[in-house]
């Protein structure tokens, strides 16, 4: 697979050693690598060109610092530029002074509007709102049925409406929208989320229909739902939607995959509108506000360490993991019991693979991302089974686990003695690792505390 950008930059900068300043010549190769990385991340060609010009202008003439390696120095410039492009802060959501707030969901076919409508409703509910959902997609087979099921699963209000045999068309769409709005007011819903049919930006009829819908509903938010896997064409559709409807924000879907998501940069910059949310999975709660700094690391292939840290903090039992970290790092190690607790915590975080993929591909975690695909999650269950089969005493002190005990444990957990041996070996390694980590910095401590010994599990 691709060599990651920082490796490439490191190579590109070999020639720079011993030179005092970054010059047009010695940065040339590095800029070429950055360009390729951005293009491979699907950032629009012209955006890439502008970016490279700016990075060059900023880097050339800089003195090679001692604190940062030239590679780090340039990565920092690139990072700053991309973040500046995306806008610094997480965007806010607009609410109407007079409810209901109307949110219009717009986008191409298959970008994820219906799923996102449900997620948005769930998110609003969590924030104490009373959203109502309505689908005016009278075209795609079973589209309205789909939203109905989604609404039911999150117990959100839905205006179903009655088609009354009316033929699919703009008149019907307008009627449903009008009725839904009235219904929202009557039932005291403070937000109305309008799921629309997917449409191509060159489909005159359907673009007109959206225009009418906008005029009718006067929405506070018109969100453009875009697939994170979109390539160079992203700018065309986004530009057209924005020109016609003045979008107020972007939702980037399917970010739980491995697409770099360069389309975010492209769309943000033809529309000037912020990415407000990202979709991280098919479930209603797989929905997060967008943080520019995070996607920048992802576009550059440098992992998403901030997301990881936050996610870990959110879902882990804080105190438990702090205690654990203290114990593990204090030098007298952690017990198998602690180890099992940690495994359970990790399970709560989501798939181990997705966690590993979020780690940066440089520094102490180098190589972990590639390992992610080789991780066998069923191993986790086996490890847990093995520890479950130990006595409390054995869990507290692994040194007493003799050959005959190992055999008993293997039998009890339905595994083999080899597997028990392997686990004990890995466990011993991990203890050692933690001890040395105890001498490390704060960041490392935090990660180690929450992700106890993942590396040892990777086989």
């Amino acid at each position: 697979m691709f060599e990651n950008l920082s490796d490439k930059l490191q190579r590109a900068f070999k020639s720079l050693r011993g030179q005092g300043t970054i010059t047009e010549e010695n940065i040339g190769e590095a800029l070429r690598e950055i360009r390729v990385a951005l293009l491979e991340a699907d950032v629009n060609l012209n955006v890439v060109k502008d970016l490279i010009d700016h990075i060059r202008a900023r880097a050339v003439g800089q003195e090679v610092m001692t604190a940062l390696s030239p590679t780090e120095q340039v990565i920092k410039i690139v990072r700053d530029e991309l973040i500046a492009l995306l806008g610094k802060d997480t965007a806010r959501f607009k609410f109407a002074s007079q409810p209901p707030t109307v949110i219009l969901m717009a986008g191409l076919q298959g970008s994820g509007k219906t799923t996102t409508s449900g997620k948005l409703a769930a998110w609003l509910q969590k924030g104490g709102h009373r959203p109502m959902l309505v689908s005016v997609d009278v075209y795609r087979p079973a589209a309205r049925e789909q939203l109905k099921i989604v609404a039911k699963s999150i117990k959100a209000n839905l205006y179903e409406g009655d088609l009354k045999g009316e033929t699919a068309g703009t008149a019907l769409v307008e009627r449903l929208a009008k009725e839904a709005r009235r219904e929202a007011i009557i039932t005291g819903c403070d937000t109305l989320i309008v799921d629309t049919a997917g449409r191509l930006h060159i489909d005159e009829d359907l673009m007109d229909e959206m225009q009418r819908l906008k005029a009718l509903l006067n929405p506070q938010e018109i969100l453009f739902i875009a697939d994170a896997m979109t390539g160079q064409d992203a700018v065309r559709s986004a530009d057209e939607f924005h020109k016609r409807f003045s979008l107020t924000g972007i939702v980037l879907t399917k970010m739980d995959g491995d697409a770099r998501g360069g389309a975010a940069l492209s769309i943000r910059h033809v529309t000037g509108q912020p990415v407000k949310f990202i979709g991280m999975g098919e479930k209603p709660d797989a929905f997060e506000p967008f943080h520019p700094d995070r996607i920048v690391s992802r576009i550059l292939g440098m992992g998403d360490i901030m997301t990881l840290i936050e996610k870990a903090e959110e879902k882990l039992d804080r105190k438990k993991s702090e205690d654990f970290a203290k114990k593990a790092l204090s030098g007298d190690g952690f017990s198998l019991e602690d180890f099992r607790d940690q495994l359970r915590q990790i399970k709560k975080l989501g798939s181990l693979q997705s966690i590993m993929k979020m780690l940066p591909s440089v520094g102490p975690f180098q190589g972990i991302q590639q390992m992610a695909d080789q991780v066998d999650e069923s191993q986790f269950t086996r490890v847990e089974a093995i520890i479950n089969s130990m006595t409390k005493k054995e869990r507290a002190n692994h040194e007493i686990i003799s050959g005959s005990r190992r055999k008993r444990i293997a039998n009890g957990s339905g595994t083999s003695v080899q597997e028990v041996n392997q686990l004990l070996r890995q466990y011993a390694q991990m203890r050692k690792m933690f001890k040395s980590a105890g001498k490390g910095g704060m960041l490392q401590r935090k990660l180690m505390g929450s992700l106890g010994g993942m590396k040892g599990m990777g086989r």
Partner: protein
Amino acid sequence: MIQTLFGSLKEAEEPEKKGLFDRMRQAVSRTRESLNDRIEGVLAMTREVDEAALEELEMSLLASDLGVATTTEVVNALREHAKRQQIRDGAELKDLLRAQLKAILDEQQKPPKTVAIGPEVILMVGVNGTGKTTTSGKLAAFYRAQGKTAMLCAADTFRAAAIEQLEVWAERSGVEIIKTRQGGDPSAALYDALQAAKARAIDVLLVDTAGRLHTKNSLMAELDKMRRTAQRLIPDAPHEVLLVMDATTGQNGLQQARLFTSFAGVTGIVLTKLDGTAKGGIAIAIAKELNLPVRFVGTGEKLENLLPFDSGAFVDSLLGA
């Protein structure tokens, strides 16, 4: 104070910002010119093929999602050709490019597996929202129009209303549909469909599966299980595994093709939504790197908006001819 791309971060006020977006808009409008305009532009400028012309071609291919690696290879081949044998003018350069792209695609167009014992089983796979269900319905109609009997299997038991959606397509195409309840085992639905198709001597069984991201191992393993289920009942099945891909897909398409091939044994690509403005250049990168042919293209949401792949027409559209 940090200098940023569009002025200083802290001091950037409204007027600065306006400049930013105007610039971007201008930058992007450049993309909007079709590839053809760009090539014509180059050709008009240069009678002789020089580096600038090749560079412009390179930009054009990148703008169609061919990706850096494929584009570089294609452009290098043109450069080599120009060295060996003089390329007189732009028209010749364009012909060469067209022939080269077409050759990449044609090389993969091996005939599909012959079907010893029916029914022919076609598995539709892909990431979420690419057009699997729609294409399944269109294909049912396509085979019926060829005088074959077809059947649909609703093996997306996961997404809300996926089964109802395919039912509408079964009705539209006039074929029978085999389904289970939502939340059921897709392999069980497939098993039932295979039995039914065999019993009724159906020619083609089209299996619509749930959209899934190629990075989710457990979901991908489910496809493998479906393959094995099919094999158990019909020795050579599935005869085709079609990866349905949206023409707007960028470089992630390669990774999709790689992983779906390794888990589900993809035999060909269906490129959908070619009625939009995206050209689907990723299909060329996929053909080149993974030796996968494009089998069909989707050109709209109607039953009849499906065409067998035609490499010549595809390349012409890509080059804006």
